[in-house]
């Protein structure tokens, strides 16, 4: 028996650009394509552009020539910024998508957890969903029955076990789902960022459970943005960037490299060396920071508090209108909003050279819960020239501690939307026959 659990050689995955956005074709597109194809070829021929060149331009390598060996019993962390290829790697290894090139050999039974609660059905009870979800994750029925009580106990759902899951709070649903997953006993376990859920206490419980799994000699592959969890659970960590392996080594070393290299998204980023700082002739980025209203740098913000995003930059050439700007994206990649400097003091006023700090204040009770990624950019107007644009310069987490004063009120479940303003509600009443004036609650 070899001691290799996973062997990967030259693994690559190519995606067609735009394919992900436009999720499906219609027959009509294909038919028109077929009709237009000869003409297009003719056009390419005349313009001297080959279709192969066009195809190259329209594709992206999500994973490029990755080669790795993972030993039996090793716990390996996989880190990298969004779009680095972490999830693609896991999806290939779990046989959900097929690689474009290269190979991977998996020695042993795989359990992969790309999402908590895959296949949960809201109409089924907790008990039924344990069986269904367990089956989907690859557990046998007898195995589930054997561990059933343990799962229920871990999930802390107790007497609600025979209630349809649609009546569960989101926290309960999450706990139940993780409890099933935590009792999976494959030889190789692959986990993609599932600990970003639940309250802090339950997260800790999950981490402990996973540590147990690691100590039982199972091979674990763990993708996460949670650096402390990575260093705690994994001896070895692989840093991916742009689809290739950038670093591979002991976790503390690789995580340190990642955080210092500025690849990680953090509450503050600084470019101490002006020669490598992003920028052009007119302006140069020096730092981006997330601050609370009392001025501390923070990566966690109460949903009710205002938060300041600060950009520190040098203006190198005087006499230009310089406009710093930020774009905000949530963790689903949805563009929440953009903003640029409209400080009246500098509006339409060419700036002298020097060091600047511009801060935008986002009021409390505006953002939704979750992580927000901030792109920091700067351009001049008349003429319009980009100076720098730093993708995911910083990121911060908006949290709601559920004490009822936010837009949540007393609701504990999931609230969708990219913004969550605290709005005024007014509800009036009159009796069933519709007589008399409408009354507010306090008038009755």
């Amino acid at each position: 028996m070899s001691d290799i659990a996973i062997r990967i050689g030259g693994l690559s995955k190519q995606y067609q650009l735009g394919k992900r956005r436009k999720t499906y074709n219609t027959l009509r597109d294909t038919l028109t394509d077929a009709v237009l194809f000869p003409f297009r070829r003719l056009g390419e021929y005349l313009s001297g552009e080959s279709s192969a060149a066009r195809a190259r331009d329209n594709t992206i390598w999500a994973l490029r020539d990755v080669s790795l060996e993972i030993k039996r019993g090793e716990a390996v962390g996989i880190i990298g910024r969004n779009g680095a290829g972490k999830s693609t790697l896991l999806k290939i290894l779990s046989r959900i998508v097929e690689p474009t090139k290269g190979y991977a050999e998996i020695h042993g039974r795989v359990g992969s957890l790309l999402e908590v609660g895959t296949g949960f059905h809201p109409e089924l009870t907790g008990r039924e969903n344990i069986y269904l979800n367990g089956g989907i994750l690859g557990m046998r029925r007898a195995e589930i029955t054997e561990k059933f009580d343990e799962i229920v106990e871990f999930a802390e759902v107790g007497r609600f076990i025979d209630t349809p899951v649609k009546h569960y709070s989101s926290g309960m649903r999450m706990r139940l789902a993780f409890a099933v997953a935590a009792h999976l006993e494959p030889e190789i376990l692959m986990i993609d960022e599932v600990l970003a859920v639940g309250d802090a206490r339950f997260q800790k419980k999950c981490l402990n459970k996973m540590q147990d799994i690691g100590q039982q000699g199972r091979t674990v592959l763990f993708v996460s943005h949670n650096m402390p969890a990575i260093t705690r659970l994994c001896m070895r960590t692989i840093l991916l960037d742009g689809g290739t392996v950038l670093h591979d080594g002991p976790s503390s070393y690789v995580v340190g490299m990642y955080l210092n290299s500025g690849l990680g998204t953090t509450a503050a980023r600084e470019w101490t060396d002006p020669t490598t700082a992003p920028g052009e002739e007119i302006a140069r980025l020096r730092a981006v920071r997330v601050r609370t209203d009392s001025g501390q740098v923070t990566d966690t913000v109460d949903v009710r508090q205002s938060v300041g995003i600060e950009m520190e930059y040098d203006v190198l050439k005087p006499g230009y209108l310089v406009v710093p700007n930020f774009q905000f994206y949530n963790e689903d990649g949805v563009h929440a909003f953009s903003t640029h400097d409209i400080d009246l003091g500098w509006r339409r006023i060419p700036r002298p050279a020097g060091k600047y700090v511009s801060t935008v204040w986002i009021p409390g009770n505006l953002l939704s819960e979750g992580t927000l990624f901030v792109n920091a950019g700067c351009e001049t107007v008349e003429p319009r020239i980009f100076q720098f644009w730093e993708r995911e310069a910083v990121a911060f987490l908006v949290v709601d501690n559920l004490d009822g004063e936010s837009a949540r009120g007393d609701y504990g479940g999931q609230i969708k939307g990219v913004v969550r303003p605290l709005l005024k509600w007014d509800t009036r009443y009159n009796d069933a026959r519709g007589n008399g004036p409408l009354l507010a609650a306090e008038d009755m």
Partner: protein
Amino acid sequence: MHASDPLSPHAVSIIRIEPSHSWPSLGLHELWEYRELLYFFVWRDIKVRYKQTALGVAWAIIQPFFAMVVFSVFFGRLAKLPSDGIPYPIFSYAALVPWTFFANGLNHASNSLVGSAHLLTKVYFPRLMIPLCSVLSGLIDFILAFIVLLAMMFYYGITPTINILWLPLLLLLALISALGAGLWLSAMNVKYRDVRFILPFLTQLWLFVTPIVYPSSLLSELWRTLFGINPMAGVVEGFRWALLGKPQAPGPMIIISAVIALLLLVGGACYFRRMEKTFADIV
């Protein structure tokens, strides 16, 4: 690894993942390995099928029964279509029971992959199970509608003959037909959502080219046999023969139907397996 670890593998299974170049195998062995999951899926479908409906499981009977009532009034009474000497209501209902199973199975199977996008992109299991489960879970509805058919036979005083033993095979033929066509359409549906619009239309046309409201005896012997190219023609005529005691067995017709249905199934499974690797990327 601990010696007591129940997972200590006697023989470690090695899976090799690489781009597929040729036509893949049907993967029947793997399908068998995952049979418990298939059971879970079918069980889930049956459990949730009539959740939050007012009439619940009665729908399984309402669909074919009311079609029978309408057909009996319009085609039987008004248009006076022949029914081989069998009372028109039971003549059409005996055909509508397998037809409803087929049509619902085909519809569910065709939409199954798109409806399971969240599973396709998150977990691995043999993808063939999704349309297969959609067809299988219709068996419960079939059984309920069939009980009504037995009651009607009793009402009309029809005693089944020994031919009723053929019924399971005829049901299997309906299942194969639904799955065969469903495999083609479900795989296409992932890429071309046109399938969603084709389906109602296709089912309706298929209903009329199947001898449900009329008997195939309207056709000459030769044409009747060729009619078996539509696998459901064989199923429907087979049902009438097996249950209602029509004297002449539609043997040649059923054989043609069975051959066509098997071709449809094998072809559909091959096409499905061929397209399968792209499902998670484009669904």
